[in-house]
């Protein structure tokens, strides 16, 4: 999932300083699961903003809506009836995708209430960790299911490097060396010989450096 966390209240408060009525929009997807932008967080943020504004003698009116997802037009358009004339700003508690989808649909001041962090998973309730580098061409089958792109600080494809010390990365002693993990895992699987094959330089044009990426599936296109 996309993991995000809430911006400090003060920051969101400043972003809507001029608004009198705001639409606070949650997302029922990833950010609900990582407890950053679901229905509950929408309620907390809206109430906090209302109270903070009341203390400043500039009352704020809020409308709270949580969509199934903010990254699908069929759900975003459900907002149409809430985006009225008097809505001065839209506060989106989605990842950066949701914020942009709302901004693309409505000619309103749309602001993000979250900082989008990474593509990762839940280790335990309240703890999330990055797992995927979104590089566009998966090589996990070559590395025992452990991603060197994102878990190695250097993203090296033929590791480990000289900074691997006692299984930890030289960047931070609390971070496991991804290549140590890969080595241990391949040994467990009896596939250490696979690591003797040199992984050629990666085609990074398929990663984010190549500009906006698109995926097309002809059979899924309706029109």
């Amino acid at each position, binding site marked *: 999932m996309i993991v995000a966390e809430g911006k*400090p*209240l*003060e920051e969101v408060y400043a972003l809507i300083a001029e608004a009198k009525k705001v639409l606070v929009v949650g997302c029922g997807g990833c950010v609900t699961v990582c407890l950053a932008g679901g229905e*509950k967080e929408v*309620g*907390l943020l809206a*109430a*906090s903003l*209302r*109270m*903070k504004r*009341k*203390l400043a003698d500039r009352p704020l009116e809020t409308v709270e809506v949580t969509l199934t997802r903010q990254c699908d037009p069929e759900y975003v358009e459900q907002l149409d009836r809430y985006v009225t004339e008097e809505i001065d700003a839209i506060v989106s508690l989605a990842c950066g995708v949701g914020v942009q989808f709302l901004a693309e649909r409505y000619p309103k001041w749309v602001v993000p209430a979250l900082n989008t962090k990474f593509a990762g998973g839940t280790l335990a309730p309240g703890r999330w960790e990055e797992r995927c580098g979104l590089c566009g061409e998966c090589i996990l089958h070559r590395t025992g299911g452990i991603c060197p792109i994102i878990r190695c600080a250097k993203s090296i494809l033929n590791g480990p490097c000289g900074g691997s010390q006692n299984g930890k990365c030289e960047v931070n002693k609390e971070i496991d060396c991804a290549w140590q993990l890969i080595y241990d895992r391949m040994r467990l699987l009896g596939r250490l010989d696979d690591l003797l094959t040199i992984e050629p330089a990666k085609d990074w044009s398929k990663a984010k450096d190549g500009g906006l990426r698109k995926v097309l599936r002809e059979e899924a296109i309706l029109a």
Partner: protein
Amino acid sequence: MTAFEPKIVAFCCYYCAYAAADLAGSMRLAYPPNIRLVEMPCSGKADARVILKAFEEGADGVYVAGCLEGDCHFLKGNLRAKKRVAALKKRLAEIGLEPERLEMFNLSGSMGPRFAEIAREMTERIRALGPSPLNRGRSPAGTAQEG
């Protein structure tokens, strides 16, 4: 000018604080009438949104009262409530309210006198802090007129 009488909402676990309040009554213990009790199935059910709502709707103070640590009927509800209250105190500070207006207490169903003591302690604390900044301009507690 009317003396400030705080309005305090107490979210009380059915298995301890709520029973302790009952016991305090049976024991004819007096405690300040500023406390408004809300019966909860567990202190862990006290939702952060509801606590904020209490402040927004005019409470000068709020507390969550759960079982003694280790004695939760649902095992960990009171420990979760403790963490949530701690997080909400930070949020209150961000909003601009004194975090001391919110507190978590632990007691058992047999602690009627302690219930009364907590009610007095919290009332004194909020009285010292004064009315919630959100209530500026509102009528003193209990004197609001309908319509």
